């Protein structure tokens, strides 16, 4: 293993740590908002780190671009999802999505 | 002990778990989940048989069979859910 591989390994491990932290937060934190916060923050960061770690290992710039896009999509979906959950929680737990 | 056996064995356990749940639990949604887990178990066996180690390309035939199976399973699930919805909504329309 040369230093690039070591760097990858460290970054991926760090990313995994963030995921664990996010999961622990989801399970242990008291209310929905802080859980949401922990989860999205940790996941976004964790995935970003894992992506950075894998980036030097891929075959070409196109694959790297795909990885970047995956991260951006997850960011977008995560942010929207968190927003929707929070909005619904603020309005009270009715079936407000129905007509 | 080999990877195909280990993975195939997990498939058989999934099949048995799903079968048990299907026979024990009544509600439609739980039955459908059980059937899908059983199906997943069978697919898992086929995927495990297709795996020939990391040095050799896997067998594409079981892969295609499983792909077909997945589409068939989701079709059946969709129809069953529609029948269940019709049952819940009563005889209002038609």
């Amino acid at each position, binding site marked *: 293993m040369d230093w690039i591989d070591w760097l990858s390994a460290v970054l991926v491990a760090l990313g995994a740590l963030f995921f664990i932290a996010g999961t622990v937060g989801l399970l242990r934190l008291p209310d929905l908002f802080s859980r949401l916060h922990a989860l999205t923050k940790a996941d976004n960061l964790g995935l970003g780190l894992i992506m950075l770690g894998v980036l030097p290992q891929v075959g070409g710039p196109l694959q790297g671009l795909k990885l970047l896009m995956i991260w951006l999509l997850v960011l977008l979906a995560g942010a929207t999802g968190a927003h929707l959950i929070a909005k619904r929680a603020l309005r009270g737990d009715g079936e407000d999505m129905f007509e | 002990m080999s990877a195909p056996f280990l993975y195939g064995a997990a498939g058989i356990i999934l099949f048995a778990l799903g079968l048990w749940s299907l026979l024990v639990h009544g509600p439609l949604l739980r039955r459908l989940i059980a059937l899908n887990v059983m199906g997943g178990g069978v697919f898992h066996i086929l995927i495990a*048989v297709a795996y020939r180690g990391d040095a050799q390309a896997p067998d594409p035939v079981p892969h295609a069979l499983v792909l077909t199976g997945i589409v068939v399973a989701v079709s059946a699930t969709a129809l069953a859910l529609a029948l269940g919805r019709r049952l819940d909504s009563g*005889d209002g*329309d038609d």
Partner: protein
Amino acid sequence: MIDWLAITIMAPLLGAVATVLAGSGAPLPGAESETDRERADRVSRRVHRVGLLAILASSAAMLVATALVWIDGPLRSELGGWGVPLGIAISADGLSAAMLGMTALVALGISLYATGYFCRGTISVHFWPLWLLLVTALNGLFIAADLFNLYVMLELLGLAAAALGALTGSREAVSANLRYLLVGLLGSIIYLLGVALIYTGYGELDLGLVRASVAADVAAGDGMLPASALALMTAGLALKAALFPMHFWLPPAHANAPAPVSAALSALVVKAAFYLIVRLWLDGLAPAATGAGAVLIGLLGAGAVLWGSWQALRAARLKLLAAYSTVAQIGYLCLFFPLLVEIPPGPLRENLIAALLLMALTHGLAKAGLFLAAGLVQQSAGHDRIEELGGTAQNLPATTFTIALAGTALIGLPPSGSFVGKWVLMQGAIAEGQWWWVVVIAIGTLLAAAYVFRVLSRAFGLEPTPTRFVTEVRTELPAFLLALGAVAGLGLGSGLVWDLLASAPMGQGG
């Protein structure tokens, strides 16, 4: 180059597509205005025309395929030009051809009847595409020579059948057919597990190749894998064929479907699952068939004959009676298994296989006729409660005659095809020294006579003499012809079945 086997699948499949397109513009359920009704009638007529055309083309192709097998022997075609084991083959021997021919006749009868039965509303818009897909699946199943292709056909059959059965939309129909769908799915998954085991062990899916590999394995004294696979597949298919005691889903599902659908389900769909059991036991996995397993099937069959006939006798409704009678009739077919496994290949065994096929065909025609007639009774009387059927013969003489003819075939009176079938079965049982099956057949026949006469005695109540024999040709004639075919056609022409099987024996086509 015309591949008639492929056409038997493609004609109904493309017909289904055509009826899907023709069904555009039907009003939504609940729309009741005058223009809506007019629109519904217009669309409905269009779909009927397209559908009838498609079923005529399909039946013609099926009959051509049957005739070709009869004249030239087995048909086989390797799709995609890859050849087995890589590609998929379809093939037809005498057994497949006979099932194709029966399906063509029953499908024609049901289709003609449906144009009259579904003349109101938009139900025809939903009926035709699903019905043509059901025919596709049936044909596909009868000519399939590949274990996984059979799985796809089974699923197509199960989904189309459950959707058709729920067409009336009544609570009973939807709940019974939801249960039928789930049972069918369970059966398919168990079958697929058997296929997965076969692929694990032999790495092939073509029935002919699997048969050779299994034979080699069994000859080497190692039959555990094929026996387990056969057990799994049979269990899965027994669920679908409603083999006692896995018949619980059948009576409500068949009794609550619209009459043409009940006829198709009882005459064809259940038979297709049973056909596949026969195909596996006598052809694809035949070397792995064990006597103990066959005796178990025979015992379940005996249970089905007794229980099904008894329940039919106690049934309050005509369609429920017909459905329980189907359970019993599947039982008779199972009684052949313990004999077939014991008897070595030869004329006696060929005789038994032909008799089995003859009984299946007779029941197919007779039960289709009975269900179609029951549907007419239900439409005319507004119900099908047997106790209140007095005077039906006066209102619907032709239909009552149809019920009597179908009853003759169900009991197994001469000259019906099932008389010949039962006769050969009893001969075989006595020749093999397994006389107890004869007792079961005798009790079942007596019970069948009792439930048929129970209906007829109600129907011939003392009422004024009818003025017209036939009230509506379009619906009454197909039912009558099917029942007549079961009694006279297959009874007097039972030699045809022997000819067909002799010209294309099993195990050579696939």
